[in-house]
């Protein structure tokens, strides 16, 4: 009982402390870089799309608001033919970013994206793709992975030996 009263008293005392509210939009808040706001697709340091269309973001998405179609260019590089996020469904949980093996999908500090029409919240690849590397400079998936793409042959990725000559009998 006393504890109840003490609790009520403590709450009452809060009336005399300074509110922590930031008066947005008059006052802009500081958002940390890991803020989970609007989602973007980044590019690797060579300026190519980072997304390889692996579908891991879409399967990680708890509200299933990511849909895409993977395809491959003539040299074997995978990329999304189209990529769509329905932000009217997105809950900004950041699981897609966690799941992304190529740092392609990233959440940014932008959260000011209200619209009058829900359809305007459906973002296609052109709306999502930015021209930089986002939060993770330097990483290039295809430099690490063993597949061959245009401009990178077998054995040219990091920690790769030159391709085996199958016809050689040398030990």
């Amino acid at each position, binding site marked *: 009982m006393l504890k109840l009263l003490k609790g*009520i008293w403590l*709450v*009452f005392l*809060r009336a005399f*402390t300074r*509110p*922590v509210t930031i008066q947005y939009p008059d006052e802009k808040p500081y958002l940390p870089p890991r803020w989970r706001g609007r989602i973007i697709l980044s590019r690797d340091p060579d300026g190519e799309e980072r997304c390889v269309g692996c579908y891991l973001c879409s399967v990680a998405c708890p509200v299933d608001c990511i849909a895409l179609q993977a395809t491959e260019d003539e040299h074997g590089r995978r990329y999304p033919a189209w990529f769509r996020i329905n932000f009217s469904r997105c809950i900004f949980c950041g699981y897609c970013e966690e799941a992304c093996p190529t740092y392609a999908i990233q959440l940014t500090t932008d959260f000011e994206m209200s619209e009058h029409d829900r359809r305007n919240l459906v973002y296609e690849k052109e709306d999502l793709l930015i021209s930089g590397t986002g939060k993770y400079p330097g990483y290039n998936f295809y430099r690490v992975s063993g597949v061959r793409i245009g401009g990178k042959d077998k054995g040219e990725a990091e920690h790769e030996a030159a391709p085996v000559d199958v016809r050689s009998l040398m030990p």
Partner: protein
Amino acid sequence: MNEVAFRLPIIAGVLVTLLTLSALLIWLERRLLGFWQERYGPNRVGPFGLLQSVADMIKIFMKEDWVPPFADKAVFVIAPAVIIVTVLMSFAVVPFTPSIVVADLNIGLLFFLAMSSLSAYSVVLAGWASNNKYSLLGGLRASAQMLSYEVFMGLSLMGVVMLAGSFNLGDIVEAQRDLWFCIPQILGFIIFLIAGLAETKRIPFDIPEAEAELVAGFHTEYSGMKFGMFFVGEYLGIILISAMITVLFFGGWQGPWLPPAIWFSIKTFLFICLFILLRAALPRLRFDQLMAFGWKVMLPLALVNLTVTGALVLAGHPSK
């Protein structure tokens, strides 16, 4: 006939004031909750956000007034009206000042108790008519809760009646000229305060609409102004219980220097604030806790209070 004509301005004045106040309470509650939670509360519409109530009213009037196709239409519409009517009727017997009272009944207290019992119908009917499991559960909870808490609500006031020797609220206020009943009837006051909280379905006794479990309880299906009427009914209830506490335990309009109306308002306002503070500070009870608390703690306490007061009154007046 003259009597009625004389009362009309008072009736009108009371009605207008109450409805305005209950609207303002929306702002007040949110604002106070804000302060107690280290934030501002509504501060954008008008000075200090005072016009928030106006904005809310405009919004609520503009909303689609929707009656679910599966609901019992007539009852569904009547239910919210019942709560407003019963609460407003209760105000008829409240003596705001010696001169401002709508109906100076000699059974004023009983009338108040009767009206507040009737408001249980509103909730039960709303829950029933909505034809929705959450609403029905809310209605059931509300009826059980209000029935249980009314028992000792009435009992807790009998001490006051004994001390004042009258059911007339004006007489009760007059009887506190020397000593407010909150001192001799401290137990009665606490019991009435708790019962009042339960009667208005305020936190920590808001289980009939417990949104965490019942969506919104008995008013799940309500929207627009019908929902608004439940809202207004709740705020009117707060004002009513606060006013009754003032009248019954804190000497009503009485006080030095200031005019009676001001004293009455100050005291009532403080209790309204207390209600809001409790909401800011306390968690919701579980239903079984609520019932156990009512029947196992509050009812015996009320009976003890009644017995002790009666004994003391008898002891103080051996001649009678």
